[in-house]
């Protein structure tokens, strides 16, 4: 079996401008949604109490809301989770509330209701000081990833490659976040992990293409820079699609079988993988071209290296 039967190099670079405009538009849209709608942060970031309770038969959410309202939790969000029998209750932290005791009070008031009795499945309580730390730790992690990757790529390749790879892939991260803002999906810690994993993974993709670019520059003389890029992309496209397809199979399996907890995690990965292919192939390469990569740079690098060795 072989999916890709490509006779000639596909002239990707001819349409480079179009691709870059498309990414710019998606990027700006993502920024727009992030700015206007904002992310729907999970309880881990905002602080508060989250409870998951399960009933043997579907309860009436109205009754639960009423009873919680009487207890003084008017700001409680009550919604179904997964099935009609599972209920998710969210309570924000408030000043002067004995935060540690909230879950017990809520359970007591749910037990007092008529009808089926609830079974406690999960409680998460996060104090206000923890949330802030998580946000700053997340930002630090992102910076470390960006710095580390730029440094490594600049060392292994050239600064032009490093810069274009990181721009292309940061644009993926923003787009993932844009999706989460647009649909108001819950942004939790696992989603943050997925986003950063995607960043490492898509850079991976750019690396494979760049590797080919370097090799083609060295081996084939007389090709223009766009031709070299086209050749590199064309000869790796089969591997790109198959690898990402395989990873996506795994992620899809998590999406289908992983349950609610892994749902948004795998959703973030899915978006990341799809845009990862696009951006590393069709955004990073044109960027390298705009930044003015040429054959001489690799020849020079080679010479310099030799000198160092000597």
């Amino acid at each position: 079996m072989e999916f890709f039967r490509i006779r000639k190099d596909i002239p990707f670079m001819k349409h480079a401008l179009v691709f870059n405009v498309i990414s710019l538009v998606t990027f700006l849209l993502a920024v727009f949604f992030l700015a206007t709608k904002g992310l729907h942060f999970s309880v881990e970031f905002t602080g508060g109490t989250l409870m998951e309770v399960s009933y043997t038969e579907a309860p009436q959410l109205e009754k639960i809301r009423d009873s919680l309202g009487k207890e003084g939790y008017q700001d409680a969000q009550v919604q179904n989770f997964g099935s009609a029998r599972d209920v998710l209750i969210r309570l924000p932290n408030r000043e002067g509330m004995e935060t540690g005791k909230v879950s017990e009070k809520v359970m007591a008031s749910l037990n007092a209701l008529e009808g089926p009795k609830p079974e406690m499945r999960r409680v998460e309580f996060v104090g206000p000081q923890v949330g802030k730390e998580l946000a700053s730790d997340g930002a630090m992690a992102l910076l470390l990833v960006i710095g580390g990757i730029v440094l490594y790529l600049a060392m292994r390749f050239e600064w032009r490659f490093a810069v274009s790879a990181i721009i292309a892939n940061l644009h993926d991260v923003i787009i993932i976040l844009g999706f989460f803002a647009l649909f108001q999906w819950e942004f939790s810690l696992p989603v943050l992990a997925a986003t950063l994993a995607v960043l490492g993974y898509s850079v991976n993709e750019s690396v494979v293409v760049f590797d080919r670019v370097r090799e083609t520059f060295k081996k084939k003389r007389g090709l223009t820079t766009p031709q070299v890029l086209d050749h590199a992309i064309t000869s790796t496209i089969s591997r790109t699609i198959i690898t990402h397809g395989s990873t996506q199979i795994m992620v899809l399996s998590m999406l289908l079988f992983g349950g609610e907890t892994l749902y948004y995690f795998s959703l973030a990965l899915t978006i990341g993988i799809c845009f990862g292919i696009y951006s590393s192939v069709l955004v990073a390469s044109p960027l390298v071209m705009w930044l003015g990569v040429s054959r001489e740079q690799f020849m020079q690098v080679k010479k310099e290296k030799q000198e160092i060795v000597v």
Partner: protein
Amino acid sequence: MNRYPLWKNILIGIVMLWGLIYTLPNFYGEVPAVQVSSGKATLKIDAAATTRRLEESLSTAGIQHDGLFADLTSVRARFRDTDTQLKAKDAIEKAFNPDATDPSYVVALNLLSASPQWLTNIGALPMYLGLDLRGGVHFLLQVDMKGAVTKRLDATTGDLRTLMRDKNVRHAGISREGQSVVIRFRDVESQARGRAVISTSSNDLQLVEGQDGADFKITATLTPMAQKTIQEFAIKQNITTLHNRINELGVAEPVIQQQGLDRIVVQLPGVQDVAKAKDILGRTATLEIRMVDETPGALEAAMTGAIPAGTELYNERGGRPLLVKKQVVLTGERLTDAQPGFDGQTQEAAVHLTLDAAGARIFKDVTRENINKRMAILLIEKGKGEVVTAPVIRGEIGGGRVQISGRMSSEEATDTALLLRAGSLAAPMEIIEERTIGPSLGAENISKGFHSTLWGFVAIGVFMCLYYMLFGLVSVIALASNLLLLVALLSLLQATLTLPGIAAIALTLGMAIDANVLINERIREELRNGSSPQAAIATGYDRAFDTILDSNVTTLIAGVALLVFGSGPVRGFAVVHCLGILTSMFSAILVSRGLVNLIYGRKRKLEKLAIGQIWKADAN
């Protein structure tokens, strides 16, 4: 030409065998067990004796066990099924805790790995499951360090007052103001003398002189060094106290760890009663010093049931009865420290106590009036007292430094010191994070994680075999060996496996196949360019190596960043992700090459590779 030297094949073989052995315990599952551990801080588990006692109690009840295991803190018995386990628990409970209202042992239901003994002996244990997979409660406690410092400053205030009086320095008031102690004087001379006196008595304080209206004052603050010591001490003592309290809950494997500078993580697997857990974590135990009633005949009378008014009957640690007066001489709040050590003259093991100024004054008076009498130090928990030690007063003790010695081994001295400190928390704590996972959700999470990995793996496997034929199969075997090594590594390191961790396993497998795809595509390309099959294999692997290395390093950078800055679920993900990248490098490059070499390496006249269709543009 495509042959590995023998040592390389052997190395791969050994690594795979190692992986297999350390993965094995995960397949045996778990069997029900009952765990007996100490329920009181005063009681130490003696492995041999407890095992014997456990054996006896089971045989009296006519219950068969599947093996007894002892470690430093507990003895566990395995049982065939949960029915026997429950029966055994009742029997053991009766035998070990005859007085149900005052249990000295924790008898808890537990699960033990069913893997054979030899695996356990070489340290091969099943993966350590996180709370989201086994159910239980997780708390993150914030220690109020400011509170610890304030407490110390309050004690210092009293100390300074005593010091000024002892040295006859006249002052116009000593008080704590925020994070400092302010001492006022009427004139400059007293101020200067005060400063001299304080700086000779303590080097924990930083002194700043000043003037406040007509008054002269000295503002004393704790040095950064002293503050650090107080904070370190506070968190250590709080952890010790938590350990003692959690024993009561009867949790089989509690985790109590320091996190960062001022936080403590408490994880109680299997605990569902959150309210009780919180209650116990927040409770304060107290220490009391009282006099022993040594009136002749009183003890004998008390033994027969006629306890004299104003006294209580307790048992000493050795088991001898002791009649203690109800009147409290001192409480644990006056005790600032207790350390094991040695008597300066006799070199006997001893416990050194430090009392604060007020405590020292009371203690001096009491000891002066009660020479050659006994005093009892009691630990009051759950409204019940227990005599930690009951020493005889040899002479008047002033200055707040007390030494208890005689008839004590150094180990006993350490225990006693620990107990004396265990009475109270050094600093208040607050729960800042709580996570409770019900047992059904935990089991569900395991099966969900397992199924996602399984079906994803199967789908990738089928696709690879169809697309790359024999080379696809080799890739799948390499991927399976990656999984094996990853699980073995996780089992060996006993890293906590959480649901995000399982997701990381799945994701890592999905990403690891990249290396094999790269290799296979390269080999196809070489064949397309007209290389001979053997040459294609060699160049394919060699050329792909650089790319694989580069791409794995970038992924690893992201993984390490998550590991450094992540907490909770993110860390669980990152650990597995990073380990997975390392194992995938090994399996994708060495294992798959080794297999290909075994299959094709010896064939001299190789015409064709089973790597799927090779389509050539010019052939069409």
